[in-house]
């Protein structure tokens, strides 16, 4: 089913929020890391994987999800967390390593957990897939119609966990959707250098489940494909694999010089930036500039507030490092 007007506006708003967030994080991340870039310095330490360009994947899929649906995501998870409705201020504080962060600074950027909306992510490629199958089984056993969604990158589709999880999900016929964000790169390795076939969605046949490919980072098309899959899962139809063509507009992580990337590739992709193209499409569909600007203003404010909250939060007490090892 195509997205209605209000859904489209909501999706646009989330894409804007996500992009504003990544831009704000990018700026904050570089603080204290100039002129000499050193990952350990500044208000945000460690690796930083930005999702700019990949917003449609998160937004188009999560538009169908409820708080009781589970999402497991990856090292590149901000857009997904935002689309799933993770508390943004607490998430930002977490990324700043602060006391008011989702886990009081224990997890950080690659380990965001928000039980209120059943969101989590993990830094080891493809390892969120098994947990998603488990979450889906829990829903099925409890008689709920909740579903689980596992996001991975196309590079992760060559990891053993992919195979095991798709097979298990199909054998158990649990309500889970596997979403591959194909941004064509696994760090410096191009998809065609790592993947034996052109379309990962064709691998669904190896597990007796439907596999859909969505081209060109198109949030409306993603919305439709995901809607079908979520509907199937909620009604006992079992798992689906969705592969989305998307674009990595930044380096693999902040600090990546991207020497391996063909020159002009990113510039070309930026001409098709999904934020720009989707805005145009909405304008063409008759949404007024004022409406869009108002959304943009709201979302920018939400992000600004979250950053401010994070900056103003204290660092956690050192002793708290010893808490929560066990529950």
């Amino acid at each position: 089913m195509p997205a209605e007007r209000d859904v489209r506006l909501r999706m646009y708003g989330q894409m804007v929020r996500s992009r504003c967030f990544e831009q704000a994080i990018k700026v904050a991340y570089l603080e204290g890391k100039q002129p000499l870039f050193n990952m350990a310095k500044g208000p945000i330490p460690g690796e930083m994987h930005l999702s700019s360009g990949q917003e449609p994947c998160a937004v188009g899929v999560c538009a169908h999800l409820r708080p009781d649906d589970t999402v497991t995501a990856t090292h590149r998870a901000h857009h997904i967390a935002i689309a799933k409705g993770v508390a943004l201020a607490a998430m930002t504080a977490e990324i700043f390593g602060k006391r008011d962060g989702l886990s009081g600074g224990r997890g950080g950027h690659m380990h965001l957990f928000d039980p209120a909306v059943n969101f989590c992510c993990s830094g080891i490629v493809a390892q969120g897939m098994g947990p998603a199958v488990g979450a889906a089984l829990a829903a099925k056993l409890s008689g709920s119609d909740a579903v689980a969604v596992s996001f991975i990158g196309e590079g992760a589709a060559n990891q053993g966990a992919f195979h095991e999880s798709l097979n298990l999900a199909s054998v158990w016929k649990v309500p889970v959707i596997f979403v591959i964000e194909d941004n064509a790169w696994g760090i410096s390795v191009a998809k065609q250098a790592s993947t034996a076939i052109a379309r990962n969605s064709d691998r669904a046949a190896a597990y007796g489940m439907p596999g859909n490919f969505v081209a060109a980072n198109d949030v409306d098309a993603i919305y439709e494909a995901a809607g079908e899959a979520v509907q199937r899962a909620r009604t006992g139809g079992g798992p689906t694999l969705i592969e989305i063509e998307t674009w990595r507009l930044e380096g693999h992580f902040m600090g990546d010089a991207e020497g391996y990337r063909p020159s002009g590739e990113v510039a070309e992709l930026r001409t098709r930036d999904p934020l720009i193209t989707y805005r145009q499409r909405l304008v063409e569909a008759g949404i007024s500039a004022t409406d869009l600007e108002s959304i943009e203003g709201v979302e920018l404010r939400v992000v600004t507030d979250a950053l401010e909250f994070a900056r103003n939060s204290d660092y956690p007490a050192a002793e708290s490092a010893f808490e929560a090892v066990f529950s």
Partner: protein
Amino acid sequence: MTATTAATPRRLTIAKAMSEAIGLSMSADPKVIVLGEDIGALGGVFGTTQGLLERFGAARVRDTPISETAFIGAAVGLAAAGMRPVVELMFVDFFGVCMDAIYNLAAKQSYFSGGQVRCPMVLMTSVGGGYGDAGQHSQCLYATFAHLPGLKVVMPSNAYDAKGLMQSAIADANPVVFMFHKALQGMGWLGTVPGSIVHVPPEMYEVPLGKAATVRLGRDITLVGLGLTLHLALQAAATLAAEGIEAEVIDLRSIAPLDHEAIAISVAKTRRLIAVDDDYRSFGVSAEIIAGASEVGVDWLSAPARITHPDVPIPYSPALEHPLLPSAAKIVDAARRLCRGKVA
């Protein structure tokens, strides 16, 4: 479940005790389910899930494909969703195909979520050799698991503890690696140390995690064992007693957290220590025991010793394997050496 009087002991194998504990927990709590290879119709290769499929059905007792990464990962997701999965990794030796789900997901779910997302799951797995199953099916790997924070690791030496530790493990809000030793399991085809088959009350009860048991009192030397080696230590203690050496024997029961306190109390008295385990020697349980006791500052009467499997892959031929394993005789020899001069 019939009442049993103390007069008629209800002697169970560890396998039966584990099955019973899981069954009681499943009856009491619909959130307890069982996953693993051959745990359904077969009742577990090591008898850990006997009768459960028949009693609780295929929705709650689920045979899996040979996909440890996926189904142990699934257990983490189930636990996050409030279920209490009991998962079997058939042999601990197979950890190499699925350790990420165990140590990076299960073990860290609580921490990464600031304690908001729990991980109440039990990973039960068989350990140990001595029956000629060679280097990929005979390992112990106690230290491999105990080294990694966020996991509790236990191993019973007898059926009573097996049931109580299993109840505690299932009730715990955290991932517990429940190791069971093949030489104690009570499967006919494996042979069983008789001392592992003991009276087990039919009702639910817990044996606390993280607490060792001092199973024999003695003033001269402390012997620490776990699982199979506890029985070897007890045998050795009997021999030593006949020679006038009174050994105190501690059954570790929990490997992580390790009950250093119980050991410290004992060695403060005996001032002699032998740690005995059947895992690889270096970076093993016995090293941790000796280091833990030493850093407290014991005024040793003789240097502490460890008896372990050496740093060698476990060989297949009994002619090679048996001499490498800890034995009561080796413990007796070492204890005699440590206690030399005691009488003088």
